[in-house]
């Protein structure tokens, strides 16, 4: 008997007697003999709790985490500080262990959390309607393309190359099923090339998808993009980084139809890429095309305020093949971390944090741009992350820095052949000026050692 079950020999005997079966095996009689496995699974024997802990601890110790190095790695997920109260609240079994609130009378806590979360996302994005979470950022971009299909049914999704490569890859996977084609438009000077975008859109464009700040860290000027998309009757989808949104013009102010994004930076751990959550907000006209759960306020029979899952006729368990999405289980616990985090930051703190990151990122771009063999890849305004161009093999430089305990960032050449010399550097509030200066030193040595042109050879042997 495993430590998670309670069946004793006496229980077994008496339970079988009540069932009227002679053995457990008999309960599986419906399974044809040929389909019985007939042997133990080829898996190791079970272990005690302390052995499992030791085994998993040893595996975890073989990873180099943000605890073990000074990391400037971002590119979609960021090493932000997660306040202790999030761990405390999320570990409460009342949040951790229930499922989707199918019985609202005993799920008011979870439903109210969804309502508060939706409010926070609505405030950040400036859009009136938010759902209660999707899986993560890139699949939320895919979900936005599906909303566009439901809204206007046109063929082409036009997406800026400033959108996260994983979002674009996810779109490319989903588009054939949606009956859509994906058209990518290039970047110029680190930002979406407006002329190229305008040339790519037309009456067949279902939606234009951009990212703010874009993958290279540039804050895009979205007004002309929105105007161009609206001129051809296409929807505008903006994938947003939620923390800089405390400063930036909101999707709502810009006239964007759908704002989506990766929620990890809102109080969620890195967790090697998940679980985090994706957010999804839209203008009022799209409320009945939204994917996922939505909590709404109502009253009970005694007139008390309460919350329920609402507009469920959009959803798969009611609408089946006509649903606005197939999503069922999403990332509610991660969204709870998100709303606690935003409440912890608060109205002023959210702005202060965004300003601190913008100032440190500005300092870092200047300090690193002054390193010989290193320059800023673009001069667009930035919020937390920015791109450098190196006069050396980026992968080799990153390896050298790693040997010094500094993770210099993300080599852009992995996804952008046009930026083979690019390095993407993220500055969260956890990276101090001293950390940035240390990166400048490490980068200087590494670039000098790996210099392609030889113009930096002065520092080489």
């Amino acid at each position, binding site marked *: 008997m495993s430590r998670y079950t309670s069946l004793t020999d006496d229980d077994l005997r008496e339970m079988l007697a009540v069932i009227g079966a002679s053995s457990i095996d008999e309960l599986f009689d419906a399974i044809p003999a040929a389909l019985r496995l007939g042997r133990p699974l080829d898996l190791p024997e079970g272990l005690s709790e302390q052995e499992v802990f030791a085994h998993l601890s040893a595996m975890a110790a073989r990873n180099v985490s943000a605890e*073990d190095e000074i990391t400037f790695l971002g590119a979609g997920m960021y090493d932000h500080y997660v306040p202790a109260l999030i761990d405390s609240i999320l570990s409460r079994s009342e949040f951790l262990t229930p499922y989707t609130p199918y019985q609202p009378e005993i799920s008011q806590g979870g439903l109210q959390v969804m309502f508060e979360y*939706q409010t926070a996302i609505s405030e950040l994005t*400036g859009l009136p309607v938010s759902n209660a979470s999707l899986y993560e950022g890139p699949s939320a971009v895919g979900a936005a393309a599906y909303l566009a299909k439901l809204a206007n049914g046109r063929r082409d999704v036009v997406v800026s190359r400033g959108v996260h490569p994983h979002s674009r890859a996810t779109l490319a996977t989903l588009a054939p099923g949606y009956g859509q084609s994906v058209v990518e438009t290039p970047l110029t000077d680190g930002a979406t090339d407006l002329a190229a975008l305008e040339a790519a859109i037309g009456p067949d464009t279902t939606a234009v998808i951009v990212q703010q700040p874009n993958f290279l860290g540039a804050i895009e000027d979205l007004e002309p993009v929105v105007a161009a998309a609206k001129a051809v009757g296409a929807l505008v989808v903006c994938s947003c980084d939620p923390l800089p949104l405390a400063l930036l013009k909101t999707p709502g102010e810009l006239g964007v139809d759908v704002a989506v994004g990766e929620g990890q930076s809102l109080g969620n751990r890195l967790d090697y890429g998940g679980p985090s959550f994706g957010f999804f907000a839209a203008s009022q006209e799209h409320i009945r095309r939204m994917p996922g759960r939505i909590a709404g306020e109502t009253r009970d029979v005694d007139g008390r305020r309460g919350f329920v899952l609402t507009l469920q006729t959009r959803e798969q368990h009611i609408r089946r093949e006509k649903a606005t999405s197939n999503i069922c289980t999403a990332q509610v616990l991660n969204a709870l971390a998100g709303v606690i985090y935003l409440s912890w930051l608060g*109205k002023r703190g959210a702005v202060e944090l965004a300003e601190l990151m913008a100032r440190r990122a500005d300092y870092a771009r200047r300090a690193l741009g002054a390193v010989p063999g290193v320059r800023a890849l673009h001069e667009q305004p930035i919020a937390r992350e920015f791109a450098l161009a190196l006069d050396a093999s980026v992968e080799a430089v990153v390896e050298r820095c790693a040997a010094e305990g500094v993770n210099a960032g993300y080599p852009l050449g992995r996804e952008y052949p046009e930026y083979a010399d690019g390095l993407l550097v993220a500055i969260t509030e956890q990276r101090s000026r001293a950390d940035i200066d240390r990166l400048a030193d490490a980068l200087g040595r590494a670039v000098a050692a790996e210099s392609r042109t030889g113009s930096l050879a002065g520092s080489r042997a």
Partner: protein
Amino acid sequence: MTIATQTPQQREEILTIYERSRPGRRAFTPPALDVPDRPIDELIPARLRRAAPPELPEIAEPEIVRHYNGLSKRNFDLDSGFYPLGSCTMKHNPKLHERVAALPGNARLHPFQAPARAQGALELMWNLERALAEVSGLPHVSLQPSAGSHGELAGVLLTRAYHADRGDQRTLVLTPDTAHGTNPATVTMAGYEVVKVGTSPDGGVDLEDLRRKADDRVACLMLTNPNTLGLFDPNIEEIARVTHDAGATLYYDGANLNAVMGISRPGDMGFDIVHFNLHKSFTQPHGGGGPGAGPIAVSDRIEPYLMVPRITCAEGAGGGPPRFDLEDDRPKSIGRLRGFQGNYGVFVRSYAYICSLGAAGLREASEIAVLNANYLLALLRRPEIAPYLPLAYGERCMHEFVLSGAPMKRDLGIRTTDLAKRLLDFGYHPPTVYFPLLVEEALLVEPTETETRETLEEFAEAIGAILCEAAEDPAIAQNAPYSTPVRRLDEAAAARTPVVRQPRPT
């Protein structure tokens, strides 16, 4: 003398975090500014900035903690009581799993860390893939999908790629009328049309109907086995034959895998593609609606199309440890379904579970799950209960069973929803209600293996008591619940005029 009491849960009006906000309060202290204090105007031009800051709450830490702790007490949860929600496998979530998931080497590992410096994570994922391959009987696994429905989408898109690669244009996907709603919704999102297959009187797939519909337009048959009636379809080999003869793939919705782990394998039944719900069979705290994970396992012929990145394992040089890597270069792959490598934190917990249980433990989990379900079913077949809540199909069940509340409604005047609401007053989370759709007033009960015999007996007693009470006065159940933080809520009003966020302060 009356004694006045008022616990926070009994207060007339619950407040939102926004209503607790007061200007000037705060919880967050930013780190000191250690770089030049440049005006924001110089960094981000005003025309790119928002007009006003977001109206987030202004509130100090103690009140945030009290607010959310207060809300938590308005939730029922698995750690507090029996949660026999059918098709959701609400088994115990071992506490160890939270500890290992929180280890810094897991929790603070960046998804773009170089594979050479994430060997522990990749090894864990590799081991989990191997274990899932063994449990499913299908050799190739991708952990990437984030939930069951995401795994379904992967499976149908893989089917699409498989047929397209062979130059075979197909337009239809078959799903039984007992299927989870995610199945037909997924089919539409993958660009196919749904065709329903009927259920035979014994609760399995109607073979005649299947034979009629399985033609060369059919891309796939999506099936759950045991199905949502809690029955193992004894004709599964014939179903597989008919499906494959039509050139279609056979997809296994793994929502009910908890019935057959180590006993029977979808791969051996003839399935081509399987999704697992790690949050069900491989225990994951359900988090109020996620996170979960929906890995898929596939046969050799589907493997070329699997999502990228794939995890690879190469033998170590000179007898060293094996080297794990991520590989994107798979020309026939359908691509990505999400960012990064999937819900790794979920993988850690499920891997810990498999390590704890081992081969014998997984089998035993399924055996006890089926035993517990049959025991509870037997208890509910007592003469004071069974006439009102008959078993919808069959005699026994696998890990869950479906009762019909139709006679209860007719004879006692209470509906399944009334029974469910009254169960709340007895301290239980009700079973799944009104699913599957083909059973009138359905009640889908899944006790799982981690419940004690006593819990099942007490639950059966509660059902009996509610029916007995309803025979006396149906209004009691019709107006239930009475003991919960709120009573029945006006869902129609919520949908008519949706209030989906806190109104902005004026």
